[in-house]
């Protein structure tokens, strides 16, 4: 465990925990952006440069902005700082802690997960491009279909029906 990993881990956990814990929804999204950036930096640490930057571009640059938009669109006096019911909070936390305990136990006990490996040459974008266009060309096309479907679906759902009828 290097210091850099520690720092990034703390950053990420703090960001995500804040995202889930803060009251103000906008603060949550901003904290989430921090968490996403932390994860992106973990990817960089793991040598996945392209994925790391993708993470920032998509999550911080687009998903967070979209979430912000959604919050601004649903911004009224009620939706700001919804008080979370106490019982649900406790129950949720218990479930989460339990899940974490189970997972952690499995990871720690697993011998495969303890391995450390010497650094590998990082994946270059060119390699990714080649892989994408050869081995993963079918998923790519499906992805295109999916994105188009998502675009149309999301727009249709989000569009104001009344305006559409006009």
């Amino acid at each position, binding site marked *: 465990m290097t210091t850099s990993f520690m720092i990034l881990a703390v950053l990420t956990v703090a960001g995500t925990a804040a995202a889930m814990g803060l009251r103000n929804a906008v603060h949550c999204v901003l904290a989430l952006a921090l968490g996403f950036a932390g994860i992106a930096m973990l990817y960089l640490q793991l040598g996945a440069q392209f994925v790391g930057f993708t993470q920032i571009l998509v999550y911080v640059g687009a998903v967070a902005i979209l979430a912000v938009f959604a919050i601004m669109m649903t*911004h*009224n006096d009620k939706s700001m700082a919804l008080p979370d019911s106490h019982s649900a909070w406790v129950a949720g936390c218990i479930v989460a802690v339990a899940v974490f305990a189970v997972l952690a136990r499995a990871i720690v006990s697993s011998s495969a997960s303890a391995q450390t490996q010497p650094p590998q040459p990082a994946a270059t974008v060119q390699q990714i491009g080649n892989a994408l266009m050869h081995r993963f060309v079918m998923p790519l096309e499906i992805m295109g279909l999916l994105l188009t479907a998502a675009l149309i679906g999301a727009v249709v759902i989000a569009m*104001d029906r*009344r*305006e559409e009828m006009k």
Partner: protein
Amino acid sequence: MSTATLAAASLNLEPANESGMDQLLEIAMGPQHPSTHGVFRMNVVLDGERVVRLKPVFGYLHRNHEKIAENETYLGSMPYTDRLDYMCPLTNNWAYALAVEKLAGIQVPERAEYLRVITGELTRLQNHTCLIGFLMQDMGASGTPLMYAFRQREIILDLFEALTGARMMCNYMRFGGCRVDLPAGWLDQAKKVVAGFPRFLDEYESLLVSNEILMDRTQDVGVLSKELAISAGISGPMARASGVDYDIRKVDHYSIYDRFAFRVPLGSHGDVYDRFMIRLLEMRESVNILQQAMRDIPEGPIVDPKTKIRGFRPKPGEAYGRIEGPKGELGFYLVSDGSPNPYRYRVRPPSLINLTILEDLCLGRNVADIVVILGSIDIVMGEVDR
């Protein structure tokens, strides 16, 4: 559509919030706002960026001009009229002098009429250039057109200063004439300025007229129909941009405008672009008038010798005199009770009345359009609030 239903329909000022769910944003634009031309204020209700309601708020420059004038002598109000529409003081002087001349039955000597036409048209030139500059400023043009406009305005102001002694507050006209005669060399200088003006207009036009952004931002924005324009008392270039063929210089035959050949440009769309273009075209006509007037100006007295400066008391009665100011119909209504002060003194401010339809023009438009529409109406708060 008959004008009655039109006026009634346009008065239905409560637009429904169509989508019924979006929260409306209420914004005050002004009194301190970069593009409200002074201290105008608009309470704007926005749905997103679309205007659903707009209530103008006046009175931030209400300096009681009428009340003060009722306690002043007739002459004493003359310098105050400079401060009404402070972009064009000389036409204000003129309108006031005209009203008093009507009230007291004073004749104006020939030369004085020429002087009035010359100064009045120069005023129109500088008002229109500056207006276009301000309009472009509102569109976000970083000041360049405004700078060019003011560059030209300074040249005209130099003329005013040489003639009347002041750059802005000229206090030049007198009942029955003008205060001072032309100083030596003034006419030559003015001829040079007027001769150079079309060149400036060409420059201005090449900078602006065919600019796609400007066209896109002004065409079909703030369309004012001819019927509404007449009903709402819109006058001046703004009415003419809507196709109302009404120029008081032609209609009232006041002063000596009948002697000059000039044309009245008319718009057909009634949008901001038309208002902008009508002013550009009007400037060219003004240049025409100026050239004719400066060619024909006769020698002679400049003021009716019978009019007294002090102790001027018109007989009881009333008069309404109006001229075609750069902003529209500028009228003065005076009631005399035989005392040295007017009993009632009223300014018919074109800026204020042209603002009547502001909300109608802005409804359903973008925020950015508001400032453009307001800019194209050409208001000066000194006159709106008086």
